[in-house]
């Protein structure tokens, strides 16, 4: 195995801090369109994606990044799902950083990941699930690394180049995961007021950390609530407005992935998608993107492809699990 390709910009806490100090941290109105929000993403950016696997994926933002044809991206997500496959097939990413990538056990190992990674078209940099979480946590804390007991001794160390640090108190050697400051974080939340104060139900995943770690934060929300409503339950706010750059109101903003308590993931859709890949290979994803990403102009047009009946059925399934 060759030397890891170390990228000091990922953990440069001084530069990341200066970048944050130089941008407005407004308590003002952040509501905008998904097109305007994604205009803040540049080619070559490191993008951290909120949610986890097929849970609370910011699908509307992922879709718009593809529609705006960004390239040379590094996509970072603890467990990567269909959104990673879309980005690979669209030629949008050159590197993904993740702990795991596929859709789920019933659909086997991702053939799209295998195709793009085995051919060398996309580099897959693997970190353990906790190590990736701690990389975001270190960045969220504004420090260059965190000591840990995980990932040491394994061959994953050589992939991302994790170093060790001597504990100044006991002298023991510990793993030192470097901070990971993304350029952009994209997340989907249950509700937010127009100033960007965001609330999440159910699994918090790593969203709070990535919104503090990133230089630019784009949020979609299922529901817009009033300023009064935020202030009635401030304990529910997990993303403060001043970290948010753009907010977009997108009901079903994770679909066909799940949003806790609101709609269950559309497993039938995954089955159809993977069946097409099994039959035709990577061109099936290009066809999928034509139909679901590049074709429909608005998110409502996109949701029309699934149909109201299907969306309602997924809502009912969610209530059965969390009601």
């Amino acid at each position, binding site marked *: *195995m*060759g030397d890891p390709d170390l990228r000091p910009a990922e953990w440069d806490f001084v530069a990341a801090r200066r970048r944050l100090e130089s941008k407005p941290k407004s308590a003002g109105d952040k509501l905008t369109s998904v097109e305007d929000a994604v205009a803040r993403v540049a080619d070559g950016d490191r993008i951290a994606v909120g949610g*986890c*696997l*097929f*849970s609370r994926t910011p699908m509307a933002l992922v879709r718009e990044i593809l529609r705006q044809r960004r390239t040379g991206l590094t996509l970072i997500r603890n*467990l990567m799902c269909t959104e990673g496959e879309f980005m690979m097939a669209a030629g949008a990413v050159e590197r993904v950083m*993740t*702990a*795991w*990538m596929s859709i*789920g*056990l*019933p659909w086997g*190992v*991702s053939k799209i*990941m295998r195709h793009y*990674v*085995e051919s*060398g078209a996309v*580099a*897959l940099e*693997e970190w*353990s*699930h*906790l*190590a990736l*979480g*701690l990389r*975001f*946590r270190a960045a969220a804390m504004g420090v260059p690394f965190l000591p*840990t*007991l*995980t*990932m*040491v*001794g*394994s*061959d*994953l160390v050589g*992939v991302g180049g994790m170093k*060790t640090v001597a504990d100044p108190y006991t002298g*023991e*050697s510990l*793993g030192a995961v470097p901070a990971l400051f993304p350029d952009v974080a994209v997340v989907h939340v249950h509700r937010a007021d127009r100033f960007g104060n965001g609330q999440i139900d*159910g*699994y*918090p*995943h*790593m969203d*709070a*950390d990535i919104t503090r770690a990133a230089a630019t934060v784009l949020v979609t929300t299922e529901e817009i609530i009033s300023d009064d409503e935020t202030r009635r339950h401030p304990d529910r706010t997990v993303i403060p407005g001043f970290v948010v750059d753009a907010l977009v109101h997108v009901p079903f903003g994770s679909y066909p992935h*799940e949003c*806790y*308590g609101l709609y*269950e*993931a559309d497993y039938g859709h995954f089955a159809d998608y993977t069946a097409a890949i099994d039959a035709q290979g990577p061109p099936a994803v290009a066809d999928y993107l034509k139909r679901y990403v590049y074709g429909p102009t608005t998110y409502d047009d996109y949701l029309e492809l699934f149909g109201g009946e299907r969306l309602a059925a997924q809502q009912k399934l*969610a209530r059965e*699990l*969390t009601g």
Partner: protein
Amino acid sequence: MTTSAAELLAVMASRQLRDDTTVFAGVGVPLLAAALAQQRHAPRLTMVIEGGIIGPRIKPGRLPISTNEMRAGHRAQMLPGITDTFLFAQRGFLDYGFMGGAQIDQHGNVNTSVLGSDYWKPKVRLPGTGGANDIASLCREVIIVTAHEKRRFVPKVDFVTSPAWLEGGDARRRAGLFFGGVSRVVTTLGVFGFDPESRRMRIEALHPGVTRAQVQEHTGFPLLDGPHVSETAPPEADELEMLRALDPERRFLG
């Protein structure tokens, strides 16, 4: 109805879990085994799932496919973030780690990352560690649950995703892993442990009807014999009944 391979695995694995403990369980057979243990002999067992879930009650017929979806957290007691969930393990609150594995070697190391000798030019790219590396690094003891096939049981894994005893002996501690290690490997043929000195895999028990020659034939390295190789008791009717009730669609039971 005959016992399927997955049922045998789930039953044998569930028997490894003691009451008044905590288990970090992966989805599929490990989670079924933990749920079975909780129902049958370990009511004060707490399951922890890496998507950020503490103390769920799995809903029969709605088994989770992933570790972080609503199904996995049904009637949970707490939903911490993912990082914080793993930090419970780093602190030492997790007794057992319960995981599967694509490729396992004579020292219990598991590979779920790549097949081939060059990570960046893999012959086969596998899904990756997920939380398996963390579970293997941080839990008090790790129990691996896997089908017993020669292609899985190799002398040396292509890539150490989840470290057990590394090259054996005291290699794990020397590598900077302070705690834990793989204690048991539960397979479709038997239950295996590790020699305390060499840390090489050894036979602890064989399932009914399995011979030593048979198990060696399906293993890509020489197996040692434990001090008292026994025969496991076959699955009881109530174990199978409870297990089948958890997965009526037989999504994971085969």
